[in-house]
C-alpha cells in the first residue's frame, strides 16, 4: 500500500525529484565508471603479468638448482601443498627464465633479451596463444626447437617466421652456450612485457643453461579469478610452511601494484566524498520537498494515515529515487565506458601496459556494482531519514491550515 502510494507520488511528481535523481545518477555514474576503468586496468596488468611470469601466483624454488632426486621431491611437495591449500588452479606452469644475459643473433644482428622464458607448451599453450600474434602459428611451438619473438625483436633482427636464430646464454658457471631456434611465431606485446622477450621450450633452455632437463625455477598457478591471487598465495604459503617463497604476480611488479592500489584508493575516496555530498544534498532537498508537501502530508494524516506510515512513505520514495538514479547512472556509465574503450590510445607512452590492443578496457564486477549501489541507496535513505522523521510529526490541522 505504502509502496503503491510512494510509486504514484514518485511518477506523478517526477519534476520534484528530478534534481535529486540527477545527483544520485551522477554520483553513481562517476563511481561506477572510475571503478570499472580501474578494474579494467587491473585485469590487463594481471593478464599480462600472469603470462609474463607464468601464473597469478608464483612459487619460487630459490637460487640454488637442486639435484635430480631433490628436484622430484620438491615438485611433489609443491604440488601437494597447492592441492592441500584447496586451490583449484585453471592451469599450472613450470618455467625456467633468464634475465638480461640472453642474446639473440640473426644475420649478424643481435638483440639483448630482457627475459628468456622457457615454458612447457602443453600446459601453457592456451594462455600464451592469447598474445596478439602478428605472424606464424603459436601451435607450432610444440616443436622443442621453436621460439616466439616479439615484433620489435623481429624487426631489429630482420627475422621472419621460419628463420633460424641463435640464442646465446651464459651457463650457470658463466661459460657461453648457444642454441639454434626456429622462429615459429611473432607476437606483439607492450614494452616491459614483451619487446625483448623470447618464449621457448623449457627443457631446451634448461639443457642450454646446464640444468637438469626436469628443472623449473618456478611453478605458477593460473587462476580463473585473478582478484583472488593474494588470498590464494597466502593459502599456498601457509601450506608450504615457509619452505619456498610464494607471491601473487602483482607483488613482482611493485610499482604497478602501488599505482593500482593508489587508483583504487582514490576511487573509493571519491565514492566516500560523493556519498557525503549526496547525503547532504538529499537532506537539504528533502527538507524543501517536505516543506512544500506539508498540506499534502496533512491531508493524508487527516484521512487516517499513521505517523510511521508517513515516515515509511517518504523513505519508500527515497528508495525509488535511489533505484532510478542508480539505474540511470549505470546506463550512462555503460555508454561512457563503451565510448572511452573506442578511443585509440596506442601511442600513449606509459599507458600502453594498461591497454588491450591500443584501447582501454573496463570491467564491471557484480560485487563491486552491488556494493556501490547499496552504499548509494543507504546514503540516499540516510539523507531522507531526517526529513521523514520531521514529516511524521506534522499535525494534520496545522498542515491543512498552512499555505
Amino acid at each position, binding site marked *: 500500500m505504502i509502496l503503491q502510494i510512494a510509486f504514484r507520488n514518485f511518477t506523478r511528481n517526477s519534476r520534484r525529484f528530478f534534481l535529486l535523481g540527477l545527483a544520485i545518477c551522477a554520483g553513481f555514474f562517476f563511481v561506477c565508471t572510475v571503478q570499472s576503468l580501474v578494474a579494467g586496468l587491473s585485469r590487463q596488468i594481471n593478464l599480462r603479468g600472469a603470462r609474463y611470469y607464468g601464473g597469478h601466483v608464483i612459487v619460487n624454488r630459490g637460487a640454488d638448482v637442486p639435484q635430480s632426486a631433490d628436484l622430484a621431491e620438491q615438485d611433489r611437495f609443491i604440488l601437494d601443498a597447492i592441492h592441500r591449500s584447496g586451490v583449484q588452479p585453471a592451469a599450472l606452469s613450470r618455467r625456467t627464465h633468464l634475465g638480461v644475459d640472453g642474446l639473440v*643473433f640473426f*644475420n*649478424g644482428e*643481435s638483440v639483448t633479451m630482457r627475459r628468456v622464458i622457457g615454458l612447457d607448451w602443453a600446459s601453457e599453450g592456451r594462455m600464451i596463444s592469447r598474445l596478439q600474434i602478428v605472424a606464424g602459428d603459436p601451435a607450432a611451438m610444440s616443436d622443442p626447437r621453436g621460439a616466439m619473438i616479439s615484433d620489435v625483436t623481429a624487426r631489429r633482427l630482420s627475422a621472419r617466421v621460419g628463420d633460424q636464430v*641463435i640464442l*646465446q646464454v651464459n651457463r650457470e658457471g*658463466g*661459460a*657461453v*652456450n648457444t642454441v639454434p631456434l626456429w622462429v615459429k611465431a611473432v607476437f606483439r606485446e607492450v614494452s616491459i612485457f614483451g619487446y625483448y622477450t623470447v618464449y621457448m621450450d623449457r627443457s631446451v633452455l634448461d639443457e642450454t643453461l646446464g640444468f637438469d632437463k626436469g628443472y623449473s625455477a618456478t611453478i605458477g598457478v593460473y587462476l580463473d579469478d585473478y582478484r583472488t591471487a593474494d588470498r590464494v598465495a597466502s593459502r599456498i604459503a601457509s601450506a608450504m610452511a615457509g619452505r619456498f617463497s610464494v607471491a601473487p604476480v602483482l607483488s613482482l611488479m611493485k610499482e604497478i601494484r602501488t599505482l593500482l592500489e593508489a587508483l583504487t584508493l582514490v576511487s573509493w575516496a571519491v565514492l566516500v566524498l560523493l556519498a557525503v555530498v549526496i547525503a547532504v544534498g538529499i537532506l537539504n532537498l528533502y527538507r524543501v520537498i517536505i516543506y512544500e508537501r506539508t498540506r499534502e502530508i496533512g491531508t493524508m494524516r487527516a484521512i487516517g494515515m499513521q505517523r510511521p506510515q508517513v515516515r515509511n512513505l517518504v523513505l519508500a520514495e527515497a528508495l525509488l529515487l535511489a533505484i532510478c538514479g542508480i539505474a540511470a547512472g549505470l546506463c550512462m556509465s555503460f555508454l561512457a565506458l563503451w565510448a572511452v574503450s573506442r578511443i585509440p590510445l596506442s601511442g600513449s607512452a606509459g599507458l600502453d601496459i594498461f591497454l588491450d590492443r591500443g584501447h582501454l578496457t573496463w570491467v564491471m564486477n557484480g560485487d563491486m556494482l552491488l556494493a556501490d549501489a547499496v552504499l548509494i541507496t543507504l546514503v540516499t535513505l540516510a539523507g531522507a531519514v531526517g526529513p521523514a522523521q520531521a514529516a511524521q510529526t506534522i499535525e494534520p490541522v496545522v498542515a491543512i491550515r498552512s499555505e
Partner: protein
Amino acid sequence: MRKGIMRLLSRRAAVRCGLILTVAGWLLWPAAVIAQSAGSTQDFVKILKQADALVTFPDSDFSALYTFVQENPGQGTSTKQAMVFRRDRDNTYLIVIVKPEEDKGKGYLKSGSNLWFYDPVSRRFTFTSAKDRFQNMNARNSDFTRSNLAGDYKVVDSVRQKLGRFDCWLLDLEARTDDIGSPRMKIWISDDGLVRKTEDYSFSGQHLRTTAFPSYQQVGSRFVPQTVVILDELRGAMINGTFVKERTTYTISRPSLQGLPDATFTKAWLENLSG
C-alpha cells in the same frame, strides 16, 4: 736326419717366436698407446705453459698504448685508444681510455676476480664482467688479463698444421671448469711457442670468435703481440649478398716493463685521471 731335426726345431722356434711377439705386441700396444698419449698430454700442457709464460710478466709491470679500430660493416669504422697497465703477479690491470674525447677518462680496474668500470661523467664505479665486450667492440674485458691457457683448459685433440708461414700445433681445448667464458677453443701455437690464432666456441660448439696474432714484438724476455685481429663470427651485416663480419683490430705500441706505483691500480688513481 740331424739337419732335418734342426730345421724342424728352427721352424717351430720361429713360429713360437712369432706367437710370443704377437701376444707381446697385443699386450704392450695399449700400454704403449697410454704411455704415448700421456707423454703427448704432458707435452701439450708444456706447450700451453710455454705459450702462457711467453706473454706473461710475473716479475715486472707492463704498460702499453693500445689502439683499437672497430669495423662494423655498413656502419663505418671507429677508433679508440687506451693505456693498459698490467701487474700480472697480482692478476690486476687498469685500462683508461684516452681517445676519443667523449670517452676519455672511462676506465676498467681489475683486482683479482673483481672488475669495475668507471664512468667519469657520473663519477661512479659499476661492477662489470670479464666476459663482457670491451667498449662495445669485439674484444672482451678478459683479453687484457694474463694468459692462463694451461690452467683453464685441457687438450682434447691435437694435430700438426701449417698456418701461413708458421708450423703449428693445432690444439682442441676444453675448459676445465664451467666458469671459463669460452668453454671450447681451437688454438694454433707455432713452434716458437707463441699463439698465432685462436677460435672460440660455445659449449654446444657454435663458432663465436676468431682471433689472429700475426706478429709479436719482444719486450725484455717476453713477447707482446704487435697487432691482434678479432673477427666476430655472429655479428656483422649482409653486404651485397655476402656476410661481412664485425672486426676489431688493435695494435700495441710503446710497450714498457718499467715498474708502476702501487697507487696506479686503485680506484682513486682512475678518479684522479679525469680530474
